């Protein structure tokens, strides 16, 4: 009975809700745009404040100050910074990041196009794994609050939060690749793989997913414990709703909302975690590309990689926020 009345309220206000959501979506998009502009501004300013610029890098060591000055004029670096910032942002918006400062001066967007899909595939698989396992374990822990299963899950998640990627990865490689010879010890380019793709993905995906998994587990547990203590749950228990239905129909949908928001934030850990995993497992992704760029002092590449990684983070958070109202009608209606 309670169910039918809420659903009728929902349909009557459905029309209004969609209209409000339209405006909320627009605001959220503007907020993402602001974040992107902010990231580009900080990135640009960091480069401005840092000693040396593109002209000194291109000129090399054996030139006079006048020659550097001439190169600077040719590259347009003598113009005031607001002008150059607008130009930088305009180019970035058209995905034109200039050319790399070292080697054959390859266009940077070509290198980004080659590396981003590799990183994204691993990151998306890792966040999916982390979400599914985290939500499941968190729910189990909450249902069995303060029993053995709960204690075990909590201790494991403490381990997961504190053990860094670069400790876990070598340990897993040592055990599964070196000692037991079941999984590959490093990444191989497509042509040289001996078995299916999945063998190469297991270690990096598991390592990357561990920390978000632990965070999401703890959050899901806390959220579910809180939900289980609510009045309406006690009413449902009193009414004699079967346990399974109680957990999955009445509680999960409410408890999961803060967890979904956290998935977006966890994705940030995952992106920087992939810097470590890609370097230690020799995966040709954006993280490895960035570290190589830093050791070669390839500033344009560093800036582009920062922008793109930041943009991926902003995009994932946007997607999560846009999906939330689908799950929680209260958000649909509160977003005025």
């Amino acid at each position, binding site marked *: 009975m309670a169910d039918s009345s809420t659903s009728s309220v929902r349909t009557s206000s459905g029309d209004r809700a969609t209209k409000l959501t339209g405006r909320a979506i627009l605001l959220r998009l503007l907020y993402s745009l*602001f*974040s*992107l502009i*902010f*990231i580009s501004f*900080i*990135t640009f300013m*960091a*480069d401005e404040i*840092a*000693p040396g610029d593109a002209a000194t890098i291109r000129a090399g060591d054996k030139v006079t100050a006048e020659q550097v000055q001439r190169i600077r004029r040719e590259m347009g670096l003598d113009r005031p910074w607001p002008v150059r910032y607008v130009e930088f942002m305009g180019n970035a918006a058209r995905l034109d990041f200039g050319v790399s400062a070292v080697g054959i001066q390859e266009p940077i967007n070509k290198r980004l196009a080659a590396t981003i899909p590799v990183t994204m595939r691993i990151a998306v698989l890792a966040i999916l794994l982390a979400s599914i396992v985290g939500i499941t374990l968190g729910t189990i822990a909450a249902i069995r609050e303060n029993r053995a299963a709960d204690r075990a899950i909590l201790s494991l998640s*403490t381990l997961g*939060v*504190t*053990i*860094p*990627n*670069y*400790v876990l*990865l*070598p*340990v897993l*490689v*040592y055990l599964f690749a*070196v000692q037991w010879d079941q999984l590959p010890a490093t990444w191989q380019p497509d042509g040289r793989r001996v078995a299916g793709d999945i063998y190469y993905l297991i270690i990096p995906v598991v390592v990357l997913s561990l920390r978000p998994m632990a965070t999401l587990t703890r959050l899901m547990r*806390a959220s579910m414990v809180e939900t289980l203590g609510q009045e309406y749950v006690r009413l449902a228990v009193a009414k004699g709703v079967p346990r399974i239905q109680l957990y999955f129909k009445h509680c999960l949908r409410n408890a999961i909302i803060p967890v979904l928001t956290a998935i977006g934030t966890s*994705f*940030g*850990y995952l*992106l*920087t975690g992939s*810097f*470590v995993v890609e*370097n*230690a497992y020799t995966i040709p992704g954006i993280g490895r590309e*960035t*570290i190589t*760029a*830093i*050791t070669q002092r390839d*500033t344009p590449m*560093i*800036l582009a990689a*920062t922008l793109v*990684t*930041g943009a991926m*983070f*902003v995009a994932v958070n946007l997607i999560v926020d846009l999906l939330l109202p689908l799950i929680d009608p209260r958000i649909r209606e509160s977003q005025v």
Partner: protein
Amino acid sequence: MIAAAGKVARTRTRGNGLFWCGVGYLVLLVLFAIFGPSLKHPYDVTVGAPFLPPSGQFWLGTDEIGRDIFSRLAYGARLSLLIGVVVQVIAVAVGILVGVLSVFGPKWVSIPLQRFTDGMFAFPDLLLAIMIVGVFSMGVGPVILGLAVGAWPPVARLVKNQVASLKDREFVTASRAMGASTFYLVIRHILPHLWGVLLAVMMVDVAATILAESTLSFLGIGVQPPEPSWGQMIQVGNLNKNSYPLLLLWPCLILSLTIFALNFVGDGLRAMADPKKSGTH
């Protein structure tokens, strides 16, 4: 203040073994960082054959070019603790300033400050530090700068929320009615309420900073050789793990224990600072 905190600690954490284990470990670690290097050989000089197993002369063995691992770990401890504490002191100082100003400052200061703080959250985790190390240079100074730039926004947000909730409490209003200036109010009545929470947060954040520093060093863009750091030693251990796993074990062990200890102490302090919320974190 410290004596008072100790007394509160004794009464509120009785039976909290993990907290005291953590404190004990950290005391040992600080002693190790101060005196460890002078017990043994200098850290950057080859003193034995490469990859020697632990022995009476080299307590934990030697590394890939024959340097004593024990004294390198001790120097690494020195560097990790130094970077962790310096970064957090900067972060807390900037965080308090920004947090207080975004509540009590005039509108033209507080609103841009709040937007700026919010904007900083658009950077995922370590990315800002990696970028700053990238465009400046590598080494201890840029690492501290990069990590501090990324570390203050959460502190500022925490301080802002706490200050905003304290601002309208009766004792603050009473003091203001008696003619206290805003500066006096903040120093005398509001900040003293924050030390407990900030100390707890700082412990956990020092752990995060130490982790971040060793991540950068592991990636080869943090502390540069020959200066030893745990992250660097893990990187070398990772390259040699097939032939000599012990090289990987020592730095991983000391790093993980340090992170655990700092987290336990932070959780214990949080429980003391706010008994109501203990156990939820």
